[in-house]
């Protein structure tokens, strides 16, 4: 049950970011995440093309995703290209899965004890 120094530092760093799920609680941002996941790294102009959202709005939303550690922007020539960061998503997903599994186990025990007697 020991948190190593590095995991503590990492946790402290994450504490300053917006929660991942809050960052995803927006239709536009969810679509951006879905597209980056499907099509790989994309420029802001590609992301705004045909999305019905202005470049400025896309930039702002990408900023929120970056703040939550979900996306990363890097410069390629004159354009900024955005990449999806999957690790925070996986981590959040896994933590919820564990709690879900605990509930299954607990309710399974409840069922067994009540149906036996």
């Amino acid at each position, binding site marked *: *049950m020991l948190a190593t120094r590095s995991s503590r530092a990492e946790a402290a760093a994450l504490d300053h970011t917006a929660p991942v799920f809050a960052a995803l609680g927006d239709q536009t941002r969810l679509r951006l995440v879905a597209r980056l996941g499907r099509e790989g790294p994309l420029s802001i102009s590609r992301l705004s093309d045909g999305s019905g959202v202005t470049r400025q709005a896309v930039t702002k939303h990408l900023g929120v995703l970056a703040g939550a550690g979900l996306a990363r922007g890097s410069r390629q020539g004159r354009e900024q290209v955005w990449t999806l960061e999957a690790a925070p998503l996986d981590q959040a997903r896994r933590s919820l899965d*564990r709690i*879900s599994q605990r509930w*299954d186990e607990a309710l399974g025990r409840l069922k067994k004890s009540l149906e036996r007697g």
Partner: protein
Amino acid sequence: MTETSTDRIEKDIVIRAPRTRVWRAITDFREFGKWFQAEMRDPFVPGALSKGKITYPGYEHLTIEVQVERMEPEHLFSWRWHPYAIDPEQDYSQEPTTLVVFELEEIAEGTRIRVTESGFDKIPLARRADAFRMNSNGWEQQLHNIARYVGDAK
């Protein structure tokens, strides 16, 4: 049926037992402890805090605190807690809680229980990441113990 979104966990289970019996099993603090794997010291009372000790193997050094919200006999039981409170050194009192709701329904086969735990979106990812890491360590330790036991018993 199981449904999980980002903010909530939903569970649905049918138990072949009368609703009165199921209600007692989830709201009597002693009976609750048996299947939830916790030793509760205080009875569940709306508005009151019930404290106890986790008995889940490997987590016996941890305490559990359940803030009871509503108790509508044989129908609804709800409480709040800190789902990732796994560091005994840490004070979680200022952190957001999740809400756990049990809803009971009488059906032909017995009783249907619907459990919903919601509010995960408000909990910092750091806490979840930390909890997950600690849980993994806990299991690694357990496996290590088993390996050692088996080795010794040979």
